[in-house]
């Protein structure tokens, strides 16, 4: 394989090969939409379920950061010439299946932060060495906040498991949501992923990321005495 190209600016992107430009655009659109779905479907509704003002405002901050991620990916997309409509939900791109299950309890939100945000971290990690530097930089700016969101999940998990009832409710939430998460990483024979790796936009195969996620998810749930149910087949 030839040396990967490096694209340092949005301006330089205009002269990059069409396949490269389309691949970067797909990723930006996907992140913009998923960040917004996450904020709308999980983070904002969770404020009402949070048990104290401390937890409510912490959840407010998390929701704002997730909305902020959408705003930043959208801003990058606009600079790249992507129409805003393509970066909003309900405009063509099918949402991930996990977004089809509206939040019902605080425990569900904690489970989502613990595990879905771990999946999000892996996705962002894979962009930290992206050859399109504006996207790489955005991933680096986003990463500390994503890590904080996963830590939020761990902190409230530690709170909930202090009582048998809390632990049981959290385990039930893990059982409900976890099966949908491995498909978050895409199909094993994804053509998109092949192109992303060809251009060093992303680094790992979907299966490598999925395996890493399973390992980390097992570690974090075991740490708190929780278990993972069987996952569904990858998309």
């Amino acid at each position, binding site marked *: 394989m030839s040396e990967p190209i490096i694209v340092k600016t949005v301006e330089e992107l205009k002269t990059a090969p069409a396949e490269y430009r389309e691949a970067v655009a797909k990723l930006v659109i996907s992140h913009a939409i998923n960040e917004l779905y996450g904020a709308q479907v999980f983070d904002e509704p969770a404020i009402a379920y949070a048990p*104290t*003002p*401390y937890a409510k*405002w912490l*959840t*407010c901050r*998390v929701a704002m950061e997730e909305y902020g991620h*959408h*705003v930043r990916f959208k801003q990058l997309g606009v600079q790249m010439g992507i129409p805003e409509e393509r970066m909003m939900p309900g405009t063509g791109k099918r949402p991930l299946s996990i977004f089809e299950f509206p939040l019902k309890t605080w425990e569900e939100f904690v489970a989502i932060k613990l595990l879905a945000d771990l999946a999000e971290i892996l996705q962002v990690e894979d962009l930290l060495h992206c050859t399109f530097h504006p996207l790489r930089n955005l991933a680096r700016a986003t990463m500390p906040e994503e890590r904080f969101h996963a830590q939020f999940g761990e902190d409230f998990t530690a709170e909930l498991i202090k009582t048998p009832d809390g632990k049981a409710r959290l385990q039930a939430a893990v059982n409900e949501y976890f099966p949908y998460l491995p498909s978050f990483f895409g199909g094993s024979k994804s053509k998109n992923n092949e192109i992303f790796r060809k251009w060093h936009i992303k680094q790992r195969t979907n299966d490598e990321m999925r395996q890493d996620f399973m390992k980390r998810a097992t570690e974090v749930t075991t740490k708190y005495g929780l278990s993972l149910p069987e996952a569904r087949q990858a998309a």
Partner: protein
Amino acid sequence: MSDVAALPRTLIEQVKAEVRTAAWFAALGEPLTDGDRADAGAYVKALGLDTLTLGLAHDWPEAERALKAPDWSTVWWDREEAERRCLLAKAETRYPERALWTALTELTTETGDIVHGKAGVAAARMGGAAKASIHVAAGAAAQAAYQLALARLARDAASPFESKFRLFAAGRWPLGVAGSTLVLF
């Protein structure tokens, strides 16, 4: 961006200017002034909770205890939420939903970056804050800016969110209601 132009952008810009010039978290733990008391009184009166007494948290650990108090008032939070929903409904009748949503999201994103830094400075200066409490403070402050924007867009000058924002702008943090006390930090 034509929808956004339909919004009164001067109102949004005015809120952004107030966010940028506010003394976020600069007076935490300091003795209450007459101005603080007047704004706190206006806030609880506008929420229909004017029988409350006023309390003061002196440091971050005391503030954290107040924020996690078992007897915190869901009535206070629910009144704010009812007010927010009412203002949002009014605003949605006046302006295109997408433009309104976009403007508010951009406002809270910009505000969040500012107030997070200010909360971090205040926590470092005073010491004793849990790391997550900086995020909590930023969430509360950015929410106050969002609520103020809604009040302005709905043209409700008597909204409790005006006096609540004034408390934040004066360097305070209204922590909420525990028992029969509104606790300021």
